[in-house]
């Protein structure tokens, strides 16, 4: 998951992992370790499996990449190591903002998370919104499994975050590779 420090990339990884664990799966979530500062590009990693996860290293060959900030598409190679036919979930207004090579080689899920977040949450904090997109495009955990972790993490604010997530889930456009023009 690619984001900028302060956007909640680490928190979202945590939430997905907790949801997977609640579903009885095994999961591992951690940030790219080290000190960070607000606004700087950051990464967080998630592994989900039905079996115990024993790899303890950064994810270098992801199946899925989530990009919380569209500006990162131009400065970070978000698809580094991404498997063939991998999925890229991007926060962007339009498919046209996604570089052509990404459009051509990977599955895409696109949502204008900034808009959804602003309208549902009242602030452009997109991490929970993007989780909706991720779940829609990949189904790694069930949407319902997210409510407990969100409630524990956000307390009173959980409802709005869940709403943003659900809206993104409904509105995310998933494009398979073959139909990318």
């Amino acid at each position, binding site marked *: 998951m690619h984001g900028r420090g302060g956007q909640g990339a680490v928190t979202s990884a945590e939430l997905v992992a*907790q949801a997977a*664990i609640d579903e009885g799966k095994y999961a*591992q979530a951690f940030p790219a*370790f*080290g000190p960070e500062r607000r606004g700087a590009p950051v990464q967080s990693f998630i592994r989900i499996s039905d079996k115990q996860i024993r*790899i*303890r290293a950064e994810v270098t060959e992801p199946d899925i990449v989530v990009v919380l900030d569209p500006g990162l598409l131009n400065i970070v190679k978000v698809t580094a190591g991404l498997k063939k036919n991998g999925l890229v979930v991007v926060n962007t207004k339009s498919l046209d903002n996604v570089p052509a090579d990404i459009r051509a080689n990977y599955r895409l899920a696109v949502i204008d998370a900034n808009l959804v977040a602003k309208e549902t949450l009242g602030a452009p904090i997109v991490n929970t919104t993007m989780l909706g997109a991720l779940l829609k495009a990949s189904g790694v955990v069930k949407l319902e499994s997210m409510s407990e972790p969100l409630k524990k993490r956000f307390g009173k604010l959980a409802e709005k975050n869940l709403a943003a997530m659900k809206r993104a889930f409904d509105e995310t456009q998933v494009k398979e590779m073959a139909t990318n023009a």
Partner: protein
Amino acid sequence: MTKRVGMEVSVAIGEMVKMADVDVIAAYPITPQTHIVEHLAELVADGELDAEYIPVESEHSAMSACLGSSAAGARTFTATAGQGLELMHEVLYVASAMRFPIVMTVANRALSSPLSVWGDHSDAMAVRDTGWIQIFTENGQEVIDNVICAFRIAEDHNVLLPVMVHLDGFHLSHVIEPMLFPEEEQVKAFLPINDYPLPLNPAKPVAMGDFAPPVIYTEAKWAQEENLRKSKETILAVWDEFAKAFGRRYLPVESYRTEGAKTLLLTMGSFSETAMTVIDKLRDEGQKIGLIRLRLWRPFPFEELRQAVKGVETLIVLDRALSTGGPGGPVCSEIRSALYDMSFRPKIVSFVGGLGGRDITATGFETIIKRGMELARTGSDKEFQIFGVRE
């Protein structure tokens, strides 16, 4: 009922310390241990844990405060990492010689310079001689289980020694993963109250921390040494009790798929889990190869190690710390020394890697094993192999 919880390992440590009903926490924050002490501070502030939290001004003070609280008979906990462990260095020797049952989790971190907040074992290797019981862990479950065991081991009247539980900084401390949490009642049943035999008490005054001229220093140190060695009996007994109460068993040397293995890889810490995936792959390819891990670092498990390498031809040791200018891999040098007098001992190849938080991937382990087996055949003019350096 055990609960399956998804939580950051550092926070889970805090939860275990809470269940252990600790009396005093004197700690100073340092990456990557911060989440442990922050969570504990929250628990104390919110009234969920009835303990005295002493926010000291340095790790030296933290350990010094722990000496005092433990001397008064309080169940004492602290945590540190890297430079913090070094800053309290002189006090560590005092804690063990004075026989205080302090429990400390160390989120292993590389030592400066250059400044690194990332994980390796150099901090742990620097405190080998401090007289503490030291246990290494590989995943979140092992961490929380051994934090509970640590209190019981430390406070046992046959032991009365401080215990360090080592966990990889960041690679374990900052990872969210599933763990089985015991019930608070189970933990309380497992941990009797701390009953230090000679605490500071105005009604029964004692003098602690005295001065020993040459005529008696050797005896004092030998008494300490005998006690540390003998503590292994209690450690094994506690792990046995733990297995009966909670269903998970811990051993001084853990083996993974070592049956009939001619080649063994030895690792410590969370790397071991990545290594296991490689062992699986190589075993599937028909290679007779296994993995052993040292869980009990001090007192050093001589018998269990010698037993584990019986009949093994090649032992590849991966150290996550570098003893500069010396034998290279500190763990490897101790292994070599432990096995030296065996009439049949494996060829030992020393690798040092994963320094300063550098990952070793499954592919990396495959390379290490292949190269290690090669070097066992050809020999090497180097004391050890450095893995992963860009030249």
